[in-house]
């Protein structure tokens, strides 16, 4: 199928020997529907069971077995369509896609070819630097997953497990609106955030719940579209970026060397970071689609769509807008916080009834920084939202200084415990007793007469005194109070 781009601007360009090149990318993302049972059978859709334990006779394509559609999977597809601001088709049909492979027992996959359940939509992709790119969605359709072949169990046999066979997938097809490896990775990231917010797919790329086929071609800026190659089954954002980089460069080199691009299916080798031809797929492209005679058209009414619409959660774009509007966050910070629903929820708990900007700083800089460093997810954070909130509160009401707060965070992270109790027990409370601060200031001034003379000539030296007093008080003095007192005593 050839899709028309909706993109009107020129994206980032690549340098070639003969000038600039534009990369044109479209993506087909397979997202596994979150459901208990399979699309057309009552077997479990759960990941990781004993071989063939989640298989019904329908999934194994035993003669005479008939498919019956799972209502909830239809609802999930419609929910996703609404999240993609897409047209919902109240009538769609199922077709058979015919090919032979050991993990496809029926010899065909039930899919939607001519009339998909969801039509055109749009995803807003946020790029670093603040640029937002609308990426067109061509369609979303429901189809069955295939089984899994294991090739390493026996020297000359492959083992087939049909537990995945028949699990519902949503294939989400973009228009060729992406123009760089960064945009392709950012699109996948945004799509993943949307389905995770919606609860229609868990987005777990390691388990294969989300995987992408990436169509890449190159052209001279503004010129006609080049011949595309399809890179199959890329299963991480980093690999999507790497596959596009490699493939675009490969095509540019071929064309500039006087060759032509052959339309083909390629495989991304993540170890070598390169794409290579999948010759076996070449003649399999004739899928001889035809309407599945076992299934009637999928039809539902406006009330069904309205009911699904009423159940939609707040989506990433709306949440971002609200964080900027209600909390006064920068669009960048808001974007970082909403990228994962769990992070956004965590932040909202920390910020509730507190200084939201301060809360955002602590969540993004201290917490995320630390989580990244130790490769932990937000769910695994040793510091709870309530604990971090308590730290933010203590900074706000001057119980502790920002510097001491970092120490408290460190203790809460490594040893656990309630931050308020940590502050109390270890005597970390900020010294606001002006008498004690004055004593410390006097002591430092008395001990450094030379520096006092220097400071009178050069007022920026006052900072050195503030530092010394902070040291003297073990960092517990209120820095603002110290600053004021030092200026006064030095007569600045």
């Amino acid at each position, binding site marked *: 199928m050839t899709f028309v781009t909706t993109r009107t601007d020129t994206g980032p360009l690549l340098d070639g020997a003969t000038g600039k090149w534009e990369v044109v990318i479209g993506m087909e993302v397979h997202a596994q529907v979150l459901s208990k049972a399979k699309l057309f059978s009552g077997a479990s859709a759960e990941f990781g069971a*004993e071989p063939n334990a989640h*298989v019904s*006779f329908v999934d194994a394509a035993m003669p005479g077995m008939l498919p019956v559609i799972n209502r909830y999977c239809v609802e999930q597809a419609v929910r996703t369509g609404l999240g993609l601001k897409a047209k919902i088709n109240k009538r769609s049909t199922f077709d058979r896609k*015919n090919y032979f492979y050991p993990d496809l027992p029926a010899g065909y996959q039930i899919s939607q070819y001519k009339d998909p359940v969801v039509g055109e939509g749009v995803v807003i992709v946020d790029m670093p630097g603040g640029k937002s790119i609308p990426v067109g969605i061509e369609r979303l359709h429901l189809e069955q997953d295939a089984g899994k072949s294991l090739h390493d169990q026996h020297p000359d046999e*492959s083992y087939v497990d049909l537990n995945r066979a028949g699990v519902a997938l949503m294939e989400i097809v973009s228009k060729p609106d992406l123009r760089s490896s960064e945009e392709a990775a950012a699109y996948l990231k945004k799509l993943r955030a949307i389905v995770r917010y919606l609860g229609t797919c868990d987005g777990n790329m390691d388990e294969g719940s989300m995987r992408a086929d990436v169509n890449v071609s190159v052209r001279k800026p503004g010129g006609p579209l080049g011949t595309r190659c399809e890179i199959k089954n890329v299963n991480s954002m980093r690999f999507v970026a790497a596959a596009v980089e490699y493939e675009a460069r490969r095509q540019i080199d071929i064309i500039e060397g006087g060759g032509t691009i052959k339309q083909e299916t390629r495989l991304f080798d993540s170890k070598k970071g390169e794409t290579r031809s999948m010759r076996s797929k070449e003649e399999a492209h004739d899928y001889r689609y035809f309407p599945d005679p076992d299934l009637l058209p999928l039809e539902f009414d406006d009330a069904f769509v309205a009911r699904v619409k009423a159940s939609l959660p707040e989506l990433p774009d709306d949440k971002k807008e609200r964080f900027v509007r209600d909390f006064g966050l920068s669009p960048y910070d808001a974007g970082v916080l909403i990228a994962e629903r769990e992070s956004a929820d965590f932040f909202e708990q920390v910020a509730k009834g507190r200084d939201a900007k301060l809360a955002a700083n602590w969540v993004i800089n201290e917490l995320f920084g630390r989580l990244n460093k130790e490769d932990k997810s937000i769910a695994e954070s040793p510091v709870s939202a309530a604990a971090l909130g308590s730290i933010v509160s203590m900074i706000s009401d001057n119980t502790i200084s920002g510097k001491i707060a970092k120490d408290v965070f460190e203790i809460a992270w490594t040893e656990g415990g309630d931050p308020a109790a940590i502050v109390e027990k270890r005597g970390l409370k900020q010294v606001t007793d002006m008498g004690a601060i004055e004593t410390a200031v006097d002591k430092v001034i008395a001990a450094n007469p030379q520096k006092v003379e220097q400071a009178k000539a050069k007022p920026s030296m006052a900072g050195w005194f503030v530092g010394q007093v902070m040291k003297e008080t073990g960092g517990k003095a209120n820095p603002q109070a110290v600053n004021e007192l030092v200026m006064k005593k030095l007569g600045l």
Partner: protein
Amino acid sequence: MSVDKDTVRRVARLARLAFPEERLEPMAKELNTILAWVEQLNEVDTSKVEPMTSVVTMSLKMRDDVVTDGARAEAVVQNAPLGEDNYFAVPKVVE
């Protein structure tokens, strides 16, 4: 509509049917006879007839999202000519 020898060879390959070269030409002829016979249906004017999606007037039946099946791996692999540990075993297929 008619098919030639090359089309027969391609369709046979896609359907995984072993076809000796000397059988391709006769099969093309046979298929063309059948196609021509079916094409007689084109004589009927169907321009005002809705495409038929089913012989019965009913809508697609749906099930609830409940696990009602599975947990019978032995039965599923019972007829497989080759297998181990409830896996189907097939001649090695590697990309």
